[in-house]
């Protein structure tokens, strides 16, 4: 009996030890760990929703998660989403937003770092263009978002216009220097004047000098187009005391040049949003355009483009200062994705954010010509698949990679959207010749002061102080003397 009792105890002990040392059974291969979970996302355009559909199948196959995507129209997006967030809740788990509005959104986002450790997530931050990493993804020093859309401006030109011997001769006779893709604003303005109103492609068509988007809607197209000139002439948004600098010499020179060259742009340019000038470029109606990098995908899409293989890609023009050309392409403002801190599904949403940011998944999004999502990972610029996507793709991707270190961000302080709308409105007033340039910029500066006072000057000054230091770190400072000496 005693032996039997001993045997029973030993068997129990062996069973307990065995259970302790045996590994926990891993989920079967192919199991979907979040099967049955639906994540609610919000974005600001149908094409963004479409872009998410490109990764939805893989997302479901890998994680078992489905996406329910709400689209809020662009012009209503910021007020509507902030209204929801500021009321202390949010119907969405995953939020798309413009990084320039980070100061308004950031406190509603779940910081990523703690979840990165907990869930062993890998956002591959080393593969993200520096400017995004340093200026656009953090709130109060914490990483809270991942890029979704590069949104940087670059230069496109129609090689037919630049390579016809007749055009070269005519240009040199008139301007006394060689016709070449513009590197400075002066060259841009000369070229737009030269090409306007005749068939520079060898036809009898009356074509246009250049393209642009000057509508003041959204956060402001005309402001984005003015910004690159303004900063290359030494401009800055505010001084250290929050005094607006948008009506100083660099600002005035930039706007006066834009007003003076208005006759060389297509009629209706004051109503153009992003797609109208892109369409004119790919139809061969304008020889020059600086716009979002996604334009390149339309340029290379033979279904609509007549300039496949005939397009050049480069940096947005700049200003020659003391023999060096200062390029300041705009980042406008990018799109990023973040997880709502009010979400009841933070864990699966973090997994979704990681998944859609993975190099191979995000590549699908930025490569598709039907999205207007721009590349933002270094691996996007260097992807062999992307570089073979259309004739000229390697030059296109190289130009984007060269543009990123030079970009100038929006004023990333609370109320950024409001500041930009006011400025864009006044710029378009000047372009429409309803106001002289100086009066328009003075008016915008007064509006900026009002916004600053309403939001609290000290609070704004503190936020701007941080951003000004970050901009200085990437080489952007106020140089009032540049406006006079820029060539």
């Amino acid at each position: 009996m005693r032996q039997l009792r001993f045997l029973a105890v030993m068997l129990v002990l062996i069973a307990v030890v065995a259970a302790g040392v045996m590994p926990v059974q891993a989920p079967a291969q192919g199991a979907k760990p979040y099967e049955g979970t639906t994540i609610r996302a919000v974005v600001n355009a149908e094409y963004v929703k479409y872009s998410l559909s490109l990764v939805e199948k893989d997302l479901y196959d890998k994680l078992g998660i489905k996406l329910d995507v709400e689209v809020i129209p662009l012009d209503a997006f910021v007020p509507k989403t902030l209204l929801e967030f500021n009321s202390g809740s949010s119907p969405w788990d995953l939020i798309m937003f413009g990084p320039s509005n980070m100061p308004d959104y950031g406190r509603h986002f779940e910081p990523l770092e703690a979840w990165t450790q907990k869930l062993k997530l890998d956002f591959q931050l080393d593969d993200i263009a520096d400017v995004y990493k340093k200026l656009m993804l953090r709130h109060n020093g914490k990483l809270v978002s991942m890029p979704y859309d590069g949104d940087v401006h670059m230069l496109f030109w129609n090689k037919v216009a630049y390579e016809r011997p007749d055009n070269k001769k005519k240009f040199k006779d008139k301007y006394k220097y060689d016709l070449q893709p513009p590197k400075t604003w002066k060259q841009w303005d000369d070229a737009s004047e030269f090409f306007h109103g005749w068939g520079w492609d060898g036809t009898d068509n009356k074509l246009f000098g250049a393209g642009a988007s000057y509508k003041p809607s959204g956060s402001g197209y005309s402001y984005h187009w003015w910004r690159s000139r303004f900063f290359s002439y030494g401009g800055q948004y505010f001084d250290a005391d929050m005094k607006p600098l948008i009506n100083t010499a660099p600002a005035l020179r930039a706007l006066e040049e834009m007003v003076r060259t208005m006759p060389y742009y297509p009629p209706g340019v004051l109503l153009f949003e992003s797609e109208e000038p892109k369409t004119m470029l790919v139809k061969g109606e304008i020889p020059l355009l600086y716009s979002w990098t996604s334009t390149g995908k339309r340029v290379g899409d033979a279904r609509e483009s007549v300039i496949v293989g005939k397009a050049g890609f480069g940096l947005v023009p700049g200003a020659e200062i003391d023999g060096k050309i200062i390029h300041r392409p705009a980042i406008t403002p990018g799109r990023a994705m973040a997880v709502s801190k009010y979400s009841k599904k933070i864990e699966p949403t973090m997994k979704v954010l990681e998944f859609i940011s993975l190099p191979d998944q995000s590549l699908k999004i930025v490569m598709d010509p039907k999205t207007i999502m721009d590349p933002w990972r270094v691996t996007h610029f260097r992807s062999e698949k992307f570089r073979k996507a259309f004739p000229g793709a390697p030059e296109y991707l190289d130009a984007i990679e060269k543009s990123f270190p030079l970009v100038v961000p929006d004023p990333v302080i609370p109320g950024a959207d409001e500041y930009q709308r006011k400025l864009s409105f006044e710029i378009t007033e000047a372009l429409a010749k309803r106001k002289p340039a100086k009066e328009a910029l003075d008016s915008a500066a007064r509006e900026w002061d009002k916004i600053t006072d309403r939001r609290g000057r000290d609070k704004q000054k503190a936020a701007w102080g941080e951003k000004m230091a970050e901009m200085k770190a990437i080489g952007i400072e106020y140089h009032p003397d540049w406006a006079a000496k820029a060539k």
Partner: protein
Amino acid sequence: MSTLVGTTPAVAVRRVNRHRVGRLVADVFTYLGLAVTLVFFLGPFAWILTTSLKGNNDFFAFPPVWIPSDPSLAHYVGLFTRASGLRYFLNSLTISSMSMVAALLVSLPTAYAIARWRFGGSVFGTFLLVLRMLPAIALIIPVYLMYKTLGLTNSYLGLVILYTVVYIPFAVWLLVGFLRDFPVEIEEAAMIDGCSRLGSLVRVVVPIIAPGMAVVALFSFIATWNEFLFAVVLTGIETKTMMVLVTTYTSGGTDMFYGEASASVVLGVLPAFAVAFMLQRYLVKGLALGGTKG
């Protein structure tokens, strides 16, 4: 006539002919003017309609493709499947229909009380219209906060209540005009014959003021269908309306979705157009009667 007396038949015939030619020329110019006006106003819609039926290659074709050689409903299918268009279309239909019925049910007894018993004194009817003068943008934040507290955001009920409240003043003002014009004696005769007050309202008054009610119905339906501000702020994924969908395509760049954007515009306009077409004979009569007798 007197001028013809004493003139020769040949002169009279010439004058008549001249008059006929003059009328003919006037008619030609009238129809020409109408044709130009029609092209001006319907041209953009016709372009949108044909674009919604075109293939992707035809969007940028030059010379422009006015009538697609191979029309397809692919963009409508894409709108319904990929962009949740069916969900939003049904939402709009439901919310507009419910608001229309609610506006009629509430405004008729209100208007009746004002017309028959001078409810609220002589200024009440006018005062109601003042509510219409408050811009929606001024109300949106307080309404949103109130709805959030009450749990009415992202619900049909919330939107129907709001639209009903917003459209009642105009509906009441219009119906008061009809009811004041309606002979009380007919109602009294019905009541002498045994009808209750409610019975005479339903059986006698309503059929006769039907044109006015049609105007109210049409107004409520179209206004609700086209409303954007409250719809974008107070709805969510489940209750978003067609107008919000249209704006998601037309605000901020359409890129390659010209076909679906056009299809959304066509579907956005069509139901309101259909309701207006069905009720047009009442509409003209109703506006002519009610509008002048408020």
